[in-house]
């Protein structure tokens, strides 16, 4: 159950391998990589601000909720901060479980909750200046479909 907030890139293959290493009861590893999208609207780079101190606590709490709800063996969450270019990875969530249903559900749950509860904010650089990214209503919808959260929403 390991959480990292870092500027550095991460090694997706190594992170996934570590989730089942020396644990031959781990039959399923589900993972997710979120990347900076670029392109049509001229986004040249993305800067990620966060709330040091709270960020790590929020991520650990989200992981703890997932571990109570599903049968998971290991969880790894990495979220990058600082300036990132289109195509670069922003976030990684990996979950090892005995069975794939739990691995998939816990992994998607953690991403959905991270999107609405972990204190990160994205600012996009465009040709005409920079702008803060607006929160998407679809993210609230994605998080709420997991049902009532433990604790305050």
């Amino acid at each position: 159950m390991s959480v990292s907030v870092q500027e550095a890139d991460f090694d997706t293959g190594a992170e996934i391998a570590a989730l089942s290493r020396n644990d031959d009861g781990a039959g399923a590893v589900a993972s997710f990589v979120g990347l900076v999208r670029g392109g049509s609207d001229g986004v040249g780079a993305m800067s990620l601000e966060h709330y040091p101190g709270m960020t790590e606590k929020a991520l650990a709490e989200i992981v703890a909720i997932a571990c109570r709800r599903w049968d998971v063996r290991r969880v790894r969450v990495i979220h990058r901060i600082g300036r990132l270019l289109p195509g670069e990875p922003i976030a990684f969530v990996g979950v090892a479980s005995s069975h794939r249903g739990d691995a998939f559900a816990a992994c998607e749950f953690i991403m959905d909750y991270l999107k609405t509860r972990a204190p990160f904010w994205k600012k996009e650089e465009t040709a005409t200046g920079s702008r803060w990214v607006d929160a998407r209503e679809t993210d609230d919808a994605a998080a709420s479909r997991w049902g009532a959260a433990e604790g305050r929403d």
Partner: protein
Amino acid sequence: MIKLLYFASLRETLGVAGEEIDASGCTHVQELRAHLAARGGVWNVFATSKSLRAAVNQAMAGADGAVKDGDEVAFFPPVTGG
């Protein structure tokens, strides 16, 4: 004293990242918001913004979240990580 922190677009709107204030009359997040809005000018955002979020001692808190002397209270727009 209460330690206040502001993040992202809110920080830029206010032109300040944080401060320490004496707000002994404020026992809940909503009173703290009213206290800050009363400064006027850019601080009106605390009265007008519906989307502003708060955290008390680094845990998400609603308008009725309790606040006491020595707490760290942060205000910020909806999060957009991931």
